[in-house]
């Protein structure tokens, strides 16, 4: 194998062997190729090209998949979003007048 190159995967920079393909990367990370989308330097890579597309030093790779979601989901603040009458900050911060919150709707 050749020299080490630096590739950023999902925001994390790691060393990989020169000549590594997207398919190799997914295999190393133990990620099944079905149901993932891969973006290399902001360009979506067709699944059919995973095996042939060689990554280069400094490439930025994003690997995405489906997670649970309705409209806003875990991690986006959906779960942490305050309920009426139990605000994280001041009630005003969320735009509801105080008397509204006291009555709790």
């Amino acid at each position: 194998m050749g020299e080490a190159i630096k590739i950023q995967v999902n925001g994390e920079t790691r060393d990989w062997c020169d000549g590594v393909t997207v398919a190799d990367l997914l295999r190393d990370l133990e990620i099944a190729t079905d149901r993932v989308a891969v973006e290399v330097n902001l360009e979506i890579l067709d699944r059919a090209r995973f095996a042939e597309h060689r990554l280069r030093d400094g490439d930025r790779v994003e690997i995405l998949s489906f997670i649970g979601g309705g409209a806003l989901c875990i991690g986006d603040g959906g779960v942490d979003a305050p309920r009426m009458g139990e605000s994280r900050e001041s009630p005003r911060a969320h735009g509801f007048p105080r008397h509204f919150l006291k009555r709790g709707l």
Partner: protein
Amino acid sequence: MTDDRLIIAGREFKSRLWVGTGKYKSFAETQKAIETSGADVVTVAVRRVNITDRSKENLLDYIDPKKYTILPNTAGCYTVEDAVRYSRLARAAGVSDLVKLEVIGDEKTLFPDTAGLIEAARILIKEGFIVLPYTNDDPIVAKKLVDIGCPAVMPLAAPIGSGLGIRNPYNLKILMESVNVPVIVDAGVGTASDAALAMEYGADAVLMNTAIAGARDPIAMAEAMKYAVWAGRLAYKAGRIPKKLYATASSPIEGML
């Protein structure tokens, strides 16, 4: 009710209850709730795969894409560019051309940015997407979305996750009369009666997530929602009696002493 199918862009749906998959305690609970709800369309979000902890299970191991229509959303997207990017990623992840398009305008209300929504929808439709837009209860915007090629519209009942129920039934009714495509009431449902009401008003389907996932007993609420949507749909088709201020006797006067 079995022959009362919902058809959008040539696709046939058995259930008029659509559900989200967020906020559940576990994938097992998600699976049980969805199964109980009878829904055949489930929404999912597109996010980075966790590359440090590969032990994490995948949602689609629990929600079989052969059994359910997977509807990816663009939740969390505040710009046209992001919404378009996430839609393309969702398609690349390989389920279908369907997308529940959200362009969020504001963090506090999560109300849609309708100008951005129309712009993003136009781009995606040109690229062959089947765009189901999450929109406001604004009939004019709904009409514009249909005009540019959306095969259905998804107006909100109330802010996402608020559980406030249908805040503007009259707008929603006008919206339903203004467009000739299916209307799926999306977001804001709090309990079964809200869902029934949406269907009684003439909605073609209802989409919800928090109302089920956030209930004390999500599985029981999923069942309640299933019946609520059925009841509302049946009542709509049956045709309700008009509201009157005064009584009308239902027992005959004839034959009284």
